[in-house]
C-alpha cells in the first residue's frame, strides 16, 4: 500500500516538475518564437520584393514598403513601389503540409520569387523543394498557364524540372501552387464575392432588368453577355445591346469603383452606380439623386455637364474627381470597344468539332465559309448555340472542370428536340488512364441516347480507367452542362414560332399580298431570315428591304411591340406597325393614319421630325414615347445589322 502510494506521489511529482519546466521554457521563449515566425513571413515577403532589411529593422521596413490587403479571408502583400504581389499558400506534401509564399510580378502572372516557410519532406530528397537553387527554377515562369513538371530540361513558360527522387513531393507542390493561384486569381482581379454580387446587381439595374437575390445569378447569366477583350470586360444586354463596364479610379478620398451603363451607341449614359468608394465628405456620391443627374448625357467626346455639386464635398473635389473618373475610364474602354471583334473567336478545333457533329464536310481552306453558310449562332447571355440551318440541329460547347484528371471541354450536338444526342465530341481533356474517353469508339456509344431527364444508360466503361472514375465523370459532365444549356436554350426566342400577327405585319410592311391560307408559304418563299446574336432580320429577297421586330416596355402605358420595315439602306422607314400596345388615351398610336406619317422618314441619326401628335394623348406623352421607342430599338438593331453584314 505504502509502496503504491509512493509510486503515485512520484508520478504526480514527475508530472508537476516536467510540466513546470516546459511551461517555464515556453513562457520564456514564446514571444521570441512568435516574433521569429512573424519575421520569417515578413522576411520572405521582403525577399520576394527584393527590399533589403536586417533582422533588427525588419518590422519597420515591412511597415514602410508593404501594403497588406485582405479580401474575403485572402491576404495579399503588395509592394508599394514595384507593384509585386505576394500571397501565402499551403497544401499537403508527401509527409506533411508545405507552407510558403509566392511573389508574383505586377501582372499577377509571372512568378518573381517563391519561399517555403515550412515543410516536412524527406531531407535531401523532397526537402530540396525548400532550397533556393530549386526554387529559382520557378522564377519567370507563367503561373497563369498552369505549371507542370517535366523530367528534365524544362524550357516552356510553365514547365519546371522535377526533383530527382521526389516525384511525389514535386507533384503535390506543383498542384498546390496551381490550386492556390486559381483560388487567389479571381479574388485579386474581381474583388470580394460581395463586390461581385454588387457588381452584377449594378449591371442588371443599369439594364433595367428585374431580379431577386435568389435569381440574380441566373438572370445575369441569361440576359447578360460578358465579353472580355484586351483585359477589358463589357457586359452587354442581349436584348437591347446596351453596354455596361466597371470602372475603378482614384477619387478624392480613395478608389471609386462602380458600373457605367451606356446605350448601345456607347455614348449616352443610361445609369451610373457606385459599388465601392472611399469618400467621406463626398460620400453623397453614391446617392441616386446625385448620380441620376448624369443620365441621358452624352459622355463622348467629353463629359461636361452642370451637375448639382455634392453638398458638403470640399470645393467640389469629389464632384470634379467623379467627372475625371468617368471620362478617363470611358476613354480606356472606348478604344477597346471600337476594336472588339464582332463575334468571339471560335477556335479551329471547335469549328471542326461542330461541323463534324452536323456531319457537314469541309476542308481546311473553306472551313470558315462552310461554317458561316451552314450554321447560325444564337446567343443567350453568355451561352452560345450553334444551329444548323438545314436540319435545325443544335450544338453547344461545354467546359467543365470536374473530370477525373482535370477540365474536360468539347462539343455536344443534339437533335432539334434538344434531347437526343447526335454526336458527342471531346476536344480537350487531362485524363491519363481514362484517356480513351476521347476515342470515337467510346464516344459513339452515346449517339442516339436521350440526355434528358438524366443521362443514364449502360455504357461500356473505359478499359483501364480506375473504377470507372473517368466514365462517371463524363456522365456527370454531360448532365451538368446539359442542364445549364437547356435553361438558356429554353429562353432563346423561338423564331419558328413567329405568330401569325407578326408574319402578317412583316408581309404588310413589304407590301406583299397573301391570303389567310398561304400566309406562311408566302412568308417562307419571299423572305430570307437572318440572325445575328439574338437579333433576327427579315429580308425581302427582291427589294432587299429589311424588317425587324421591336419590343420595348417603356411606352406611356406599358410595353409596345411591333414591326419596323426599312429600305435596304437600313435608314428610311418603309412602314411602321404596332402589333401590341397598352396605351389608353394614346390608343390612336396604332392607327394607320398616325403611323403612316412616319413613312419615308429617315430614322437615323435620330428620329426627329414634326409629326401630328395624337389627339387626346396626354401632353404628347405617347407620341414622345413612340419616338423614343423607335430610336432606342433602332440603335440596337442597327448595331446587330452592321455586324451581320460585315
Amino acid at each position, binding site marked *: 500500500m505504502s*509502496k503504491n502510494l*509512493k*509510486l503515485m506521489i*512520484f*508520478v504526480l511529482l*514527475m*508530472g508537476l516538475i*516536467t510540466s513546470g*519546466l*516546459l511551461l517555464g*521554457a*515556453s513562457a*520564456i*521563449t514564446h514571444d*521570441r*518564437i512568435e516574433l*521569429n515566425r512573424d*519575421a*520569417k513571413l515578413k522576411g520572405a515577403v521582403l525577399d520576394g520584393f527584393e527590399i533589403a532589411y536586417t533582422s533588427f529593422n525588419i518590422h519597420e521596413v515591412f511597415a514602410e514598403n508593404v501594403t497588406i490587403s485582405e479580401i474575403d479571408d485572402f491576404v495579399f502583400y503588395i509592394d508599394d513601389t514595384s507593384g509585386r504581389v505576394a500571397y501565402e499558400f499551403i497544401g499537403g506534401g508527401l509527409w506533411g503540409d508545405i507552407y510558403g509564399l509566392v511573389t508574383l510580378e505586377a501582372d499577377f502572372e509571372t512568378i518573381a520569387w517563391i519561399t517555403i516557410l*515550412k515543410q*516536412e519532406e524527406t*531531407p*535531401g*530528397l523532397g526537402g530540396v523543394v525548400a532550397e533556393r537553387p530549386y526554387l529559382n527554377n520557378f522564377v519567370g515562369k507563367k503561373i497563369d498557364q498552369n505549371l507542370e513538371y517535366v523530367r528534365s530540361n524544362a524550357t516552356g513558360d510553365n514547365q519546371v524540372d522535377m526533383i*530527382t*527522387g521526389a516525384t511525389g513531393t514535386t507533384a503535390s507542390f506543383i498542384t498546390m501552387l496551381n490550386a492556390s493561384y486559381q483560388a487567389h486569381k479571381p479574388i485579386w482581379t474581381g474583388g470580394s464575392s460581395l463586390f461581385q454580387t454588387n457588381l452584377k446587381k449594378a449591371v442588371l439595374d443599369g439594364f433595367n432588368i428585374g431580379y431577386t437575390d435568389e435569381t440574380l445569378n441566373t438572370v445575369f447569366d441569361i440576359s447578360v453577355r460578358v465579353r472580355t477583350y484586351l483585359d477589358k470586360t463589357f457586359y452587354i444586354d442581349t436584348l437591347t445591346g446596351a453596354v455596361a463596364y466597371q470602372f475603378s479610379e482614384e477619387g478624392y478620398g480613395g478608389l471609386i469603383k462602380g458600373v457605367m451603363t451606356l446605350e448601345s451607341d456607347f455614348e449616352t449614359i443610361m445609369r451610373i452606380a457606385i459599388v465601392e468608394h472611399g469618400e467621406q465628405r463626398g460620400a453623397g456620391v453614391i446617392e441616386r439623386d446625385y448620380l441620376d443627374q448624369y443620365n441621358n448625357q452624352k459622355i463622348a467626346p467629353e463629359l461636361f455637364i452642370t451637375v448639382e455639386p455634392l453638398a458638403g464635398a470640399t470645393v467640389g473635389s469629389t464632384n470634379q474627381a467623379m467627372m475625371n473618373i468617368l471620362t478617363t475610364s470611358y476613354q480606356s474602354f472606348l478604344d477597346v470597344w471600337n476594336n472588339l471583334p464582332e463575334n468571339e473567336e471560335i477556335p479551329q478545333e471547335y469549328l471542326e468539332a461542330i461541323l463534324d457533329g452536323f456531319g457537314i464536310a469541309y476542308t481546311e481552306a473553306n472551313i470558315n465559309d462552310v461554317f458561316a453558310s451552314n450554321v447560325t449562332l444564337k446567343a443567350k447571355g453568355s451561352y452560345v448555340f450553334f444551329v444548323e440551318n438545314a436540319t435545325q440541329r443544335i450544338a453547344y460547347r461545354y467546359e467543365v472542370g470536374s473530370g477525373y484528371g482535370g477540365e474536360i471541354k468539347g462539343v455536344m450536338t443534339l437533335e432539334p428536340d434538344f434531347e437526343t444526342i447526335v454526336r458527342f465530341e471531346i476536344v480537350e481533356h487531362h485524363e491519363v488512364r481514362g484517356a480513351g474517353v476521347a476515342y470515337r469508339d467510346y464516344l459513339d456509344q452515346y449517339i442516339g441516347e436521350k440526355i434528358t431527364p438524366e443521362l443514364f444508360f449502360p455504357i461500356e466503361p473505359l478499359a483501364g480507367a480506375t473504377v470507372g472514375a473517368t466514365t462517371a465523370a463524363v456522365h456527370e459532365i454531360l448532365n451538368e452542362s446539359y442542364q445549364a444549356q437547356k435553361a438558356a436554350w429554353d429562353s432563346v426566342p423561338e423564331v419558328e414560332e413567329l405568330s401569325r400577327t407578326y408574319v402578317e405585319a412583316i408581309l404588310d410592311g413589304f407590301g406583299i399580298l397573301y391570303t389567310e391560307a398561304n400566309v406562311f408559304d408566302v412568308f417562307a418563299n419571299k423572305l430570307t431570315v437572318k440572325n445575328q446574336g439574338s437579333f433576327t432580320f427579315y429580308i425581302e429577297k427582291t427589294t432587299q428591304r429589311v424588317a425587324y421586330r421591336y419590343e420595348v416596355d417603356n411606352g406611356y402605358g406599358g410595353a409596345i411591340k411591333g414591326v419596323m420595315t426599312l429600305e435596304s439602306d437600313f435608314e428610311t422607314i418603309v412602314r411602321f406597325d404596332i402589333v401590341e400596345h397598352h396605351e389608353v388615351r394614346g390608343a390612336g398610336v396604332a392607327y394607320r393614319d398616325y403611323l403612316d406619317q412616319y413613312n419615308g422618314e429617315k430614322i437615323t441619326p435620330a428620329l426627329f421630325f414634326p409629326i401630328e401628335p395624337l389627339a387626346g394623348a396626354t401632353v404628347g406623352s405617347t407620341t414622345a414615347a413612340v419616338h423614343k421607342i423607335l430610336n432606342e430599338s433602332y440603335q440596337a438593331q442597327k448595331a446587330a445589322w452592321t455586324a451581320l453584314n460585315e
Partner: protein
Amino acid sequence: MKKWIRMKYTKWYNILKDGIAMNNPIAIAVLGICSALAVTNRVENAIAMGIGVTFVVMMSSAMISLLRNYIPAKVRMVTYMVVISTFVIIFQFALQAYFPAIADSLDAYVGLIITNCIVMGRAEAFAVKNPARYSLIDGFASGMGYMLVLIAVASVREILAFGTFLNFQVVGDGWINWVSMAMAPGGFFVLGLMIWGIRELTKNFEGQVGEVE
C-alpha cells in the same frame, strides 16, 4: 607524460574513451540506426542532429542520475521517457527562439531524438547507477560518439550524392550524382561497410565483447 599516464586511469577519461571509441553507440553497440540512416545524407544535418542528441542525452542522464534513488522500478522506463521528452521539447523551444535558422533545418529531426535508443540506453545502462557528474560525462561521450560516426557517414554520402561537402562544391563539373546515396539504401551501404570495416580492424567480434571491459 606522467600526467598523461595518470589521466588514463581516471574514471572520466575511461568513460569518455568508452563512449566515443570502445563502445561507440553506432559502430559497436549498433544503437540509434534509424536516425543515423535518416539524417546522414548531408553533413550539416548530421552535425545538427549530433548536437541535439548530445544535449538531450547529457541533460536527461544528469537528471535521471539525480533522481536515481527515488525512481520506483515499476515506472522506470516511463520516467526516462518523460524526462527525455521534456528536454527534447526545451531544446526545440530554445532553438526556435534563439537560433531560428538552425531550428528550420533541424525541425523534422528534433522529434526523432525522443525515440533515439542511445538516450534511453545510457539512462538505463549508466545514469541510473552512477552519480550525476559521471552521467554528464557519459552522456557527452555517447553523444560525441554518435555525432562522429554520423559525420563520417554523411561526408561519404553527401559527396557521392550531391558532390558537395557542407554545401561547398568539392567535385568537378563532370560529376554525376549518385542518386541512390541520397536515399535510405545508400545509408545502409555506407553504414554497413563502415561498421564492418571498424570491427574488422579492431578485431571486435560478437561473443568477444567481454574483452573490452
